Each structure stands twice: as C-alpha cells, then as structure tokens.
C-alpha cells in the first residue's frame, strides 16, 4: 500500500474513536435507556414493566449499539500500530493495548446482548428478565480490567517515548490522566455486592463517574491521535518526492 493511502486509513481509524463515542452514547445510553440506567434495587416486576414500556427503544438501542461498538476496533488497531512504532522491536505494550481494546469490545457487546435477550421476550417470567439484566450489568461492570490494562499500556508507552520528545504522541499530562481514568474503574467492582448507594451499578462512583472518565479519555486521546496523523500527513506532503524533485504537494498540483 502506498503511504498516502496508509495515512488515509490511519486518519479514518483515528476518527473511529469519536464515532464510537457518539454512537455509544446515543444508542447504548440515550435510546437504550441507560441514562439513567435501571436500579439494581428494582423489583423483578418493575424491571419487566420497564422493558415492556420502552420495548421499541431498548431493542433498537442495543441492537444498533451491538453493531457500532466495533468502531472501537479500528481505533484500537491504529493506536496499537502507532505504539508499535514508538516501541520498536518488541511491541509488548502495543499488543497489550490491542488485546485490551479488543476484549473491551467483547465486554460491552456481551452486556448489550444480555439486555437484547431480555427484551426479546418481555412477557417471560420477570425473574428471568431480572437475571438477564443483572448478568448484563455485572458483565460490563466487573470486567473493566481489560480496559484498564489497555489504557495503562498506552500511557506507559507514550511516557517512555524518549526518542520523540519534541513531537510526542500525547503530552505527559494526558498520559497521567489516562492512568487516572483507567484506575477510576476500580470502585465498579463493588457492583458485585451493593444494590443501593454510589457504588451500586446505577451509582455515581460505579457508573456515572467511571463511564464519564472513559468517554473523556476517548475524546482527549482521539484529539491527540488525530492531530498526530494530520502532522504526519503534512510532513509527508512537504517531504521531497521519490525522484528528489519538488515536494509532493507541489508535484501533485502541477
């Protein structure tokens, strides 16, 4: 593949981050009725009623979210490739980031899947609907560690990048923010025990704050990733063409 096409794919992949973010909030959050999400303290009958009442939206939200969640994959793939450039011969952190990102997609997918199954036959025994809803939430809230590793790997690789101090992939503060956001998921482990309060799966500490951190990290990281691709595109265009003639941009224009 020529470098121009490669850079174009890189830019598209970097933009998949914000695209994932937008579709995730819209379909998983708003249309799927997860802002606010159902309380774990809700009785089975009330929970079943919630499904019946918003059946169309919940089905649409989760079924579409299950497709758009894969936008996270090209984004992670690009980050991984960019990290491998930084790491050189042994891209351990780049691989870790890729695995973490890929499994994040699976964790999010499976949670949606359980809710989609719950919404498939809303007339079934409410206890089963509750079981599926519980499973979905605990799948997504107890398995955050894949995402934590993904984020920490990225932060460590960029922090340790001493070759490109003049043009780092991200500033140091973003790396520290990334580590912080990654660690902010830890309280979500308490969702396995608590049904009310800030540490329940609809609480501030286990839901709103860590999810907000994750999405904020997506925005900040995407901003710098896109900036980096654009910088390299400019460099490519102003670099001399293969035959040593005029820069590519002028060569193309003439």
């Amino acid at each position, binding site marked *: 593949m020529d470098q121009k096409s490669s850079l174009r794919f890189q830019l598209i992949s970097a933009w998949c981050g914000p695209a994932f973010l937008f579709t995730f909030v819209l379909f998983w959050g708003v249309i799927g009725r997860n802002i606010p999400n159902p309380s774990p303290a809700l009785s089975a009958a009330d929970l079943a009623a919630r499904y019946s009442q918003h059946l169309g939206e919940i089905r649409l939200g989760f079924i579409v979210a299950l497709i758009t969640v894969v936008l996270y994959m090209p984004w992670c793939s690009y980050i991984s490739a960019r990290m491998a450039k930084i790491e050189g011969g042994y891209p351990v952190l780049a691989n870790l980031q890729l695995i973490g990102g890929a499994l994040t997609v699976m964790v999010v997918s499976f949670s949606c899947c359980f809710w989609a199954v719950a919404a498939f036959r809303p007339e079934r025994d409410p206890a089963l609907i509750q079981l599926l809803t519980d499973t979905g939430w605990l799948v997504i809230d107890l398995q955050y560690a894949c995402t934590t590793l993904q984020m920490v790997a990225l932060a460590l690789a960029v922090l340790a990048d001493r070759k490109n101090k003049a043009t780092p992939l991200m500033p140091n503060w973003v790396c520290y923010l990334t*580590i912080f956001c990654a660690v902010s998921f830890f309280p979500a482990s308490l969702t396995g025990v*608590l049904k009310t309060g*800030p540490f329940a799966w609809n609480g501030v*500490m286990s839901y709103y704050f860590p999810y907000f951190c994750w999405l904020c990290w997506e925005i900040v990281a995407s901003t710098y990733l896109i900036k980096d691709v654009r910088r390299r595109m400019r460099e490519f265009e102003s670099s001399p063409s293969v035959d040593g003639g005029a820069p590519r941009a002028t060569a193309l224009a003439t």
Partner: protein
Amino acid sequence: MRSQTDIQSVSVGEPTRRLPGVEGVWVFVAADMMVFALMFGSFMVSRHQSPALFEANRHALNPNFGGVNTLILLTSSWFAALALESVRKSRFVLAQRFIGGAFLCGLAFMVSKGIEYTVKLNAGISLTTNEFFMYYFTLTGIHLFHVVAGNVVLVVLWFRARSRSCDPERPVVFECGAIYWHFVDLIWMILFPLLYLMR
C-alpha cells in the same frame, strides 16, 4: 556546591521557584481528589437523608483506631518530608532510613485497619449491613488501597535511594512520591472526622 549551582542558575536566568515533581502527578492527584470529593459529597447527601441512622451507627466505630491511624499517617508524612530533604542534601543513607520509617508507618496503618475490619466483621457488621457501614467500608477501603499503593511507591523510592539514581538538585521521582504520600495523608485527615467524629 549548592551556592555554586545557585549562581549558575541565576546567571542562566532560570526561575528559582519550580513545580515539585512532574505536572502529571499533580493532574493525577487533582483528579483523585475530585473522586474523593464526589464520595464525600454522596456521603453527606445520604447522611442528610437519614441523619438518625448515621449518627447511631457512628458510635459503633472506635475513634481510638481512627485517632491512632491519624497519628501514624502524620508521622509517615513527616518521614517522607525528611527523606526528601535528605535526598536534596545528597544524604542517601539517611534518606533510606526515613523512607523505611514512612514504609513501616504505612504498614502499621494497614495492620491497624486489618484489626479494625476484623473486629467489625466478627461483630457481624459488613459492607451490606446498612448505608453507614457501606460508606465506612468503601471509603476506608478505597483509602486503604491508596495506602497500599503508596507503600509500593515507598519501596521503589527506597531502592532509588540505595542506588542513588537521582539528581539531588531535582529529585523528581522522590518529589512525586512525597506528593502522593502527603495526598493519601490529607484524604485521611478529611475521612477521619467525616466518619468517626462528625455529629
């Protein structure tokens, strides 16, 4: 040696005051403080909603444990500050001792919390007992997690002091460690009155 460098830095025109540590540590600490502020805020909201429950259960806590924990952490912070001073004076052996002191204080805090938790659990009180104890266990637990992380940092600093791998004029790693350790101390200073003392 010291005055010589001071003269040098003045002649180059560098500012004499600088941010200790790296900016990233401050970002991390500020963000973490925000998390604790959120937790303290939600504690206050819940407390406001059921004041009787919170007041009654507060008496089940032993303030002596909290008080001893406070003293332990303050001493530990003092050790960390002394260690940093020693590193700045290139007295690495002394710094190692102070770091060791801070580490032992951290360890004592963990043991004390372990005993406190065991007493509560043996009395049949746990995370799910009621709202007050949910906050008690989660807030002190998350703080304890920070103490454990701090002790890991102290071990790293101890080895750094032993290998003398830092610039005494700008011991960034030691500064970062001390900032974090003071932050853990500060959080406890708020947590202790909030859970044990506030009427």
